[in-house]
């Protein structure tokens, strides 16, 4: 038993070392994202972040899209987690992504002007949602939108990647890993192996 506690201390020490390497400097929201996560609305303001790849108008569009995909509601969203910064970083490191994002963003604005007479960011929030729905829901798919759908899928994928690897995103999921457990975690419902009678969950 004595041995066990030394071991535990050792692990805590290692975890502490790992925590020390924490944040990558140069991004406006990742370090911030670990800190205050309340008052999400207050964060809707121009980012101080300077995009590496995207032009300023492109970046504004990326930021809005990520925000629509994972919005702040009763919990923080993509904007709070600095997801657009992650997207910019990843895209800046991959030529294929650069091509796909650039042509996709351009498709979005062209299409928005053509159908609604305005650039995407000039639409109001409801119009933006209505505009994106045919790209996102099978029932609403339209022929001719294939490139737009591919692009939306791509943006959504990178938004998910950026959000659910942020501290905010993993808190949202209540990620239970990277912790110390004294024994291998065991199912708490052994009287119900088929799990047919679980309490209806208290989903947050």
């Amino acid at each position: 038993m004595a041995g066990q506690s030394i071991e535990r201390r050792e692990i805590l020490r290692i975890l502490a070392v790992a925590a020390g390497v924490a944040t990558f400097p140069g991004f406006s929201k990742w370090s911030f994202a670990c800190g205050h996560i309340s008052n999400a609305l207050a964060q809707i303001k121009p980012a101080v972040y300077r995009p590496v790849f995207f032009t300023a108008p492109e970046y504004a569009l990326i930021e809005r899209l990520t925000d629509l995909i994972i919005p702040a509601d009763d919990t923080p969203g993509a904007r709070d987690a600095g997801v657009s910064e992650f997207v910019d970083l990843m895209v800046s490191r991959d030529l294929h992504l650069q091509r796909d994002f650039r042509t996709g963003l351009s498709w979005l604005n062209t299409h928005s002007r053509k159908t609604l007479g305005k650039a995407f960011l000039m639409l109001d929030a409801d119009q933006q949602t209505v505009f994106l729905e045919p790209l996102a829901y099978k029932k609403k798919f339209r022929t001719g939108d294939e490139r737009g759908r591919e692009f939306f899928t791509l943006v959504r994928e990178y938004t998910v990647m950026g959000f659910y690897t942020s501290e905010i995103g993993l808190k949202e999921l209540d990620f239970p890993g990277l912790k110390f457990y004294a024994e291998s975690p065991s199912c708490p419902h052994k009287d119900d192996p088929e799990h047919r009678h679980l309490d209806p969950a208290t989903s947050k």
Partner: protein
Amino acid sequence: MPRQIYDVIVIGTGAGGGMAIKTLCEAGLKVCALNSGRRLDPEKDFRNHRNSWEMKYRGFGDPKTRMKDMPDFLDSEYNQGAWEHDIAYTTAPGTKWMWPRCSAVGGKTNFWGRSAARFADIDFKAATLDGFDADWPVTYGEMAPYYTHVEKMIGVASTVQNRPSNPDGVYLPPFNFRCLDWILQKGSEKVGVPYLPDRLAQLTEAHDGHPACHFCGDCTFGCEVGAFFSSPWFLLPAAEASGNLEMRTNAVAKNILVDENGRASGVAYIDRESRQEYEVLGRAVVVAASCIESARIMLNSKSRHWPNGIANSSGQLGHNLCDHLYATTASGYLPQLLGQPSFPDNVGANSIAWMPRWQNLEHAHEETFVRGYSVYPDGGCSEFPSYHDQIEGFGSSFKREIKRRYPTPVSLTVQAPTLPSGKNFVDIDPKAKDTFGIPMARIHFQWGDNELKMFQHAKQTSAAVLHSAGGVLEYAAEEPESPGYSLHETGTCRMGDDARKFVTNRFGQTHDVGNLYVCDASVFLNSTDKTTTLSILAFTLRTSEYLMQQFR
């Protein structure tokens, strides 16, 4: 000053090399180990305890430098710098081969999947049972004591299961079942398929000076406390403590040197950094560079005595390359768990159970294929919600659904052995040389009918298990993963009594060259439904004892 002559030179420090090095050094032999990569520093190179948001690319790795065709858990930001980028290989036209290799000290044992089941007589005598190919030149009875020795050394968590294809060993307490395991076990029961704790070389309690696992869940990124078996944590320290080991790192073995009688006299290697060639001399040589690399080194060892590669009078060196066919045979989710609180399911990198071979057990020809496969289930709350692409839409409803589905994903993966085939082998590319000037291995490989039938069979069974468990099936692979994906290649230096048909004898000693031994999965006759590491350790232990007898 006369050049030092070591007792044994061991090429490679993974499961086979590590076990040979430990056993020989502890017996008092002077060993020089050659490892083609560097030593890893657990605190720097294993980033398994880092949170994703503490890493620049959130764990995905730099899109610019990461090998694109690798699965997510290899060459990611968590273990970047540990995987081989320099030693290239070619593939024959029509061959797809994805070959992740770890050249660091300890090799792939640093990151392996930890499943550690014994082979059985149903494996060793498969040819007698089904009439295909050749039996192994060993029996389970001969191997059992070596398996026991190895299990006691490394610690394997499992239960006694009394299955004909799965001899039971000496086990630490098993991993506890999680919610998804009980649900899938019930589903398996209805289909008539076993669902049991895997044999996991992962310490559920402190063992022989090694700490117990703390179930953090990122095992495939390395373990900096050494709570699962790897050569650098379990084998090499004892060898280094003996004072009999000289480890040369960044030493890329080029060819085996021979004396005037054609016997092995040493190894020529290239220093990875200076690109200079060196020679090291020894009384015996153990090749343990992993299946394809071992064959390449031996095929590149041409001399007056061995014009077709050392110990290749049979012409079989490089032949009979086998692999595991891997594929996702069913994935989806368990609605019973929708919206449940998150649970630490990812305690063993998500896989702690197995569905061990249940086909062709009573009779060799019950199925349309011969032999058998196993299935590995995994799922539950993992770090990243990779099921997101199964949910459509965006906005708050999308975000809620990702959260609701978090505890529910499940996935079944088939591990099906290939049969030896004349089409599957390794030779030396006549033109291509790697950055060290060494001729490259060229891989020839196609899936055969038998393993493709197993794949289809596994898909049907996996879908049935998922349905019977009340689950929803969302995906099953159309095609298997690329050959090479499993990292379980075997063959190329097969063992057998007949020197005209086999490269090595039943002890892993080459028939042609008495002081040349092979200690990795290349001596295996074929792959089985089980993983290779435990058997590499057991066979190497036996070969090392035999080698020591030759020294006396």
